């Protein structure tokens, strides 16, 4: 079984539209949405939820006012400035539990909090594992790991060849959690200075964790000079540019209709994405 992860560094370069297209073309796969704090893949895949589970994670300190003697030790020692006036600010609390360990009168307990939900769904393109991190919650990395674990179990149980994951933007905790041990990372970038800067950083993360990566330049024709700069950079770093996909309003039009762009049109943008998938398919089989 092979796992393909789509990343970008910068948000809004077209990850989800490309993943949605892969979902409609690829066979024998489980789809996974690892962008758990702003998940969008379900908008293209029309999932019907088969299984819904609570994501319990992280803890929040709660001070029992009746027991508290207002000694102030907890607020002096809390490194996250989460306690003031003998009350815990749940947003600032990192759930480390330090305060509960040191309270001389055992007035502080750590309560497990519901930090989100995760789902196994039947979509029009097969199985989808997705999640929703609770608003302003922590531990997105842990939820990503859970989504991947479920996708892997489903793929094994059903004898499927691929897991195709839509990754989060950035380079931090959820990206690292979605990246460890995948077969291939496809970096979707755009020919803007921001896109290039962010691609370089996310390629650095792939290299740091020893994950093979290739690049797709999306909307390559909005600035061909920058596209050449990306190709030059990739050549220098030994990273393959697997596709150049043109800008096309059809991508947004398809999104509005809630379908993948390869189903919506057979113009150049769709043909490029199809041949990108065929190329990746061969690479992963290979």
């Amino acid at each position, binding site marked *: 079984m092979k796992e393909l992860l789509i990343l970008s560094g910068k948000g809004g370069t077209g990850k989800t539209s490309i993943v949605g297209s892969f979902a409609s073309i690829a066979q024998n796969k489980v789809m996974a949405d690892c962008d758990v*704090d702003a998940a969008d893949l379900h908008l293209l895949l029309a999932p019907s939820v088969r299984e819904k589970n609570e994501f319990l994670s992280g803890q929040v300190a709660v001070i029992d006012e009746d027991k508290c003697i207002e000694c102030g030790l907890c607020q002096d020692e809390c*490194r996250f400035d989460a306690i003031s006036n003998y009350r815990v600010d749940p947003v600032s609390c990192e759930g480390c539990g330090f305060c509960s360990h040191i309270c001389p009168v055992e007035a502080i307990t750590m309560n497990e909090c519901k930090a989100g939900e995760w789902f196994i769904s039947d979509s029009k393109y097969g199985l989808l594992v997705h999640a929703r991190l609770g608003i*302003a919650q922590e531990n997105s990395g842990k939820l990503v790991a859970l989504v991947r674990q479920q996708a892997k179990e489903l793929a094994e149980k059903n004898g499927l060849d691929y897991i195709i994951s839509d990754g989060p933007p950035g380079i931090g905790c959820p990206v690292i959690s979605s990246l460890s041990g995948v077969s291939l990372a496809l970096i979707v970038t755009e020919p803007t200075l921001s896109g290039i*800067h962010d691609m370089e950083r996310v390629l650095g*993360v792939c290299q740091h964790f020893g994950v093979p990566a290739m690049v797709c330049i999306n909307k390559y024709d909005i*600035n061909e000079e920058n596209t050449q700069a990306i190709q030059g950079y990739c050549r220098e770093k030994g990273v393959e540019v697997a596709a150049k996909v043109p800008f096309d309003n059809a991508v947004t039009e398809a999104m509005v209709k809630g379908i993948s762009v390869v189903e919506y049109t057979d113009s150049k943008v769709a043909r490029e994405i199809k041949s990108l998938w065929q190329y990746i398919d061969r690479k992963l089989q290979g």
Partner: protein
Amino acid sequence: MIISVASGKGGTGKTLVATSLALSLKDKYDVQLLDCDVEEPNDHIFLKPNITRSEAVSIPVPKVDEEKCTHCGICAEACAYNAIAVVKEYVLTFPELCHGCGACSYLCPEKAISEVPHEIGVIETGLADSIDFGHGKLSIGQAMAPPVIRKVKGLVDNNKVVIVDASPGTSCPVVEAIKDSDFCLLVTEPTPFGLNDLVLAVETVRQLDIPCGVVLNRAGVGDGKTEEYCRQENIPILLTIPLDTAIAGFYSRGVTLVEGMPHYKNGFIELFDKIKEVVDERTADS
């Protein structure tokens, strides 16, 4: 006054709005721009600040003195992040999992644990014209953005108009960036993905009790549902920027909107005046 710029979905134009707002206000106010998207900071590409100060960001991680350690295991039990483990005659520490809460060193009965700095990023400051500029950069391979964001937020100068550029999403890095703001600008695009993530962003700012308004970017693309949502939820659309290939062209080359197309400057000044009205009203009420 602190104005934060967030979005939910990535790539909707946070950087464009933050940089152009700063440039539009700089002749009238003392302006500070803090880029808190520490995973993928981009504002510097557009404002080209003259960086004059750079400071490493570290978190304190445990260092165990094996001579003093009795392998009692209290530290490992106390650690909420599995960043320290005791196996028979060894203590293993995992700095990349550590949140720096300090519980292990405080609780060690033998005083065998000291704390040493573990570098996770850097903050840089300088001037971009008359704009007081600061940003943070999470190091490649590091997972934890919030401590770097906290350090950038530590630069806030309350005598200035402070613009805080946040990362995409709705989880801890975004909360860390936008909390304590007087107003949050939510930048979105009128597409199904943009709307789905705007709804999440609105829930986040409401949970933090921060007043918000919307900047509708790439107006003309997609559908009318975002405007409908804003009307229903009584969220003001404070600025509309049309879909325009000329804007995309400037952006791709690292040119800010108000430098490329100066007639937009008035729109940003009016945007600020509207924000100021809301903030002043709230201050008067409380």
